[in-house]
């Protein structure tokens, strides 16, 4: 998401320096594996060359059709399924195949490379870590399954299918785990939460990929390479469906982002206010361990937190709600929540907006404390109202101090501390 680039904008760094250590470790170990595999295969030669070429081509096509799922996750379902299918292949037609795991690695790597070339040619730089991750999960299955394929268990389909199913699930688990480790590092969230997020986002696509991988292996083994063409149809349909989903999801977010600017164009709030509050809020939400669905709601609420100001006859001077009277603040929040509630689909977002100016500590007999997202937006809004787009560190520090002083009654201390950490990271440091 948008926040993660902030740290890198301060200074120019070499391309590899923008990678975290986890990504570097993954990429270098996969690269080493590929070098070993290619060397070995060139020495020994390809076993069942026609199958290797067909599967390699399918992997290349899948890589060409890779797409981005919500949350900036790159996936290539067709390539993954084809790689898995090649790793799980026990025969072509009635002819048994016994190639090595290293050949699987080579074919997958070459296919992925060829499929990436058009992307590079049009100037889209590849996500090397995502490619390495896909290759790693295929390689793992290959190393586990190739010995089984060589053992001649061919005719016991029940046992074969069971082993394949376990390995397909294993490859999904590996993919999710690697992605979560890298994500927890790049956007700074706890590993447990990253794992859950990743599993939630990928579970269904993984199941489709795994099933198709097995399907390809079984059908090619019983009916020969002609089957390969026909049996990729289900994953094609799934790919189309998920691509549409990702597009609509992205447009939705873009639209809310764009329309959050109506209050700015109307002169109600300072330019860029909604977006800065959203960025800060997401950073704080991550610090405080919010999972992705909650973060999305938080982002929507933060973007639209000032929408209630549209109902005011005259803009508040400077648009800073932190300077308005509490009654006025509450009215804006209520009006905004009413607008959002009318959509009929963003009820939780409306609730967050409604409670955004409630003080953290409430007196006896009053309502419960506001939800975490509201507390986050309250702090982020106050900070941005007072700091604006200034990059002055002293000013930021002074504002933080003021929020800390208020944090016994107005602001949640834990949230203010989270803001401190986010601001610390985001401010460029010059030595």
């Amino acid at each position: 998401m948008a926040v993660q680039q902030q740290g890198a904008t301060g200074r120019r760094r070499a391309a590899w320096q923008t990678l975290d250590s986890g990504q570097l470790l993954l990429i270098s170990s996969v690269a080493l594996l590929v070098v070993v595999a290619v060397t070995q295969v060139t020495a020994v030669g390809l076993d069942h060359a026609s199958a290797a070429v067909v599967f390699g081509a399918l992997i290349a096509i899948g890589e060409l059709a890779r797409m981005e799922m919500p949350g900036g996750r790159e996936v290539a379902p067709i390539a993954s399924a084809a790689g898995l299918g090649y790793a799980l292949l026990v025969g072509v037609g009635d002819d048994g195949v016994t190639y090595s795991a290293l050949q699987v690695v080579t074919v997958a790597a070459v296919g992925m490379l060829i499929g990436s070339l058009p992307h590079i040619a049009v100037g889209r730089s590849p996500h090397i870590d995502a490619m390495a991750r896909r290759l790693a999960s295929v390689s793992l299955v290959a190393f586990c399954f190739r010995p089984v394929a060589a053992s001649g268990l061919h005719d016991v389909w029940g046992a074969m299918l069971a082993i394949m199913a376990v390995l397909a699930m294993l490859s999904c688990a590996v993919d999710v785990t690697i992605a979560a480790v890298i994500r927890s590092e790049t956007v700074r969230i706890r590993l447990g939460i990253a794992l859950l997020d990743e599993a939630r986002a990928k579970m269904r696509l993984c199941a489709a990929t795994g099933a198709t991988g097995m399907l390809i292996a079984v059908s090619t083994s019983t009916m020969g390479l002609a089957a390969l063409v026909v049996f990729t149809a289900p994953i094609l349909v799934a790919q189309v469906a998920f691509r549409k989903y990702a597009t609509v999801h992205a447009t939705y977010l873009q639209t809310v982002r764009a329309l959050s600017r109506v209050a700015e164009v109307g002169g109600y709030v300072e330019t860029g206010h909604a977006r800065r509050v959203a960025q800060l809020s997401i950073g704080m939400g991550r610090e405080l361990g919010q999972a992705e669905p909650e973060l999305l709601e938080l982002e929507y609420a933060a973007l639209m937190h000032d929408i209630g100001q549209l109902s005011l006859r005259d803009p508040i001077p400077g648009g800073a709600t932190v300077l308005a009277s509490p009654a006025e603040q509450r009215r804006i929040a209520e009006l905004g929540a009413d607008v959002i509630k009318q959509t009929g689909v963003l009820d939780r977002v409306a609730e967050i907006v409604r409670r955004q100016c409630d003080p953290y500590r409430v007196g006896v007999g009053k309502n419960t404390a506001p939800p975490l997202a509201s507390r986050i937006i309250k702090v982020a809004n106050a900070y941005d109202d007072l700091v604006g787009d200034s990059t002055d560190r002293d000013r930021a520090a002074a504002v933080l101090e003021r929020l800390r002083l208020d944090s016994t009654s107005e602001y949640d201390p834990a949230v203010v501390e989270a803001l401190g950490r986010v601001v610390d990271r985001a401010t460029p440091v010059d030595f």
Partner: protein
Amino acid sequence: MRELPLAAWAFVCGVIAAAAVIVVLAAHDSEARPHWPALLVLALLFLACESAPALLNNQRAVVSLSFSVGLASVVLVGPAGAALVGTVAVFSLHRSVSPRLVDRLLKRAYNGAQYTVCGYAAGQVYQLFGVRPGMPDARSFPHTIGPFIAAAVTYVTLNLALIGCTLVLSKQAAIGDLRVRPVAQLALSCLGFGMVGLLIAGLWRVPYTAVLAVLPLFIARWAFAQTRAQQQAYEATIATLCQAVETKDFYTRGHSERVSRGSVMIAQEIGMRPERVEAIRYAGMLHDVGKLGVPTKVLQKAGQLAPEEYAAIQLHPMRGLEIVREIGFLDEALAGIMHHHERMDGRGYPMGLAGDEIPEFARIIAVADAFDCMTSDRAYRGRRPIEEAVAELRKSSGTHFDPDVVQAFLRALDRDSWTTPAPAPLPDSDVVETTEQDHDDPTAPLKIAGDGAR
């Protein structure tokens, strides 16, 4: 359900009779006796798929996976078997909504009969190519693909033709309503799902693997459902945010939504592609978003506007563009928002484009915009009747509006009705803000100081 016309009765009964003949023949044809266990499993699978349809909701069309099972049985158990498998659609758990028992029974019988006829015909076509029904193996599999495609085409075409005939004969649709594009799309997606039948047939030798072919499809179904839900949420959100912009003025409530509807009517009348119609829907919805950038006191000012105030109003399309530019829209929609106040004679704003220089989207939105403004209440005047607004559009076509667009709009108006807003109750002037003049109103141009001509 209304009473069926005689022709429809005859047609439905004819299809059912044909199916009955096929079933009797199939049951007594000792030569092509199908493989009973496989037939049983296929019948159960078919029933399951038929009972849980709606695999792919392509807006209007509902495609169920039963197509693929029907076609799998063509390969595995031959025409007689496929006909028998199709018959079980009679027992589908999918509830029909008709209130009358006779209608429900008739629908069931017809549904089963239709699948029976299709299965039998597809099976015959499959055999025409000299392929014997049965489980394909490694050597024969490549040779079944061609005949299978022919069988699938037969199955789908026959099915759609039967459905089309009943729709037309029972007067639920006129022949003119059946457009080529949607029908072709429907046929293609049916064919796609029919192809799954080949997968099921090909994997019949290895138990349980048919599940593997169906699982990704069910996941795809989930994704399609999510996409639809997300799309609806998206539309609701855009509509609401536009309304939030409209709360500035009591009288313009619902304006954006009506302009959007009017623009879509015109676009469809002109015969735009569905993607462009979709884009103009959003463009119409968002066309006045930039009005927020105009100070309220200018928008609501009674009497003459100072030149700089008029300039502020003229800027609102640009402001709108500024807001929506980052949305992944078609460029056309953006151009439509930016130029919706241009005039054909070049005296519009913000750029003073004339004639064909004005983007098509903008010419369309301009007509819908002005029409809705004229037919709704304003603080300074009541609504005009539709006839009067139409006359005004006619009068200004060529100078203000594009004549072709106006013609298209009038044709669309004749066909579909236009819902004018509910009469606005007299606003409580303490609470609600009203406008004393409206920049959209072609009959009452803005009064600008020092410009008597306008």
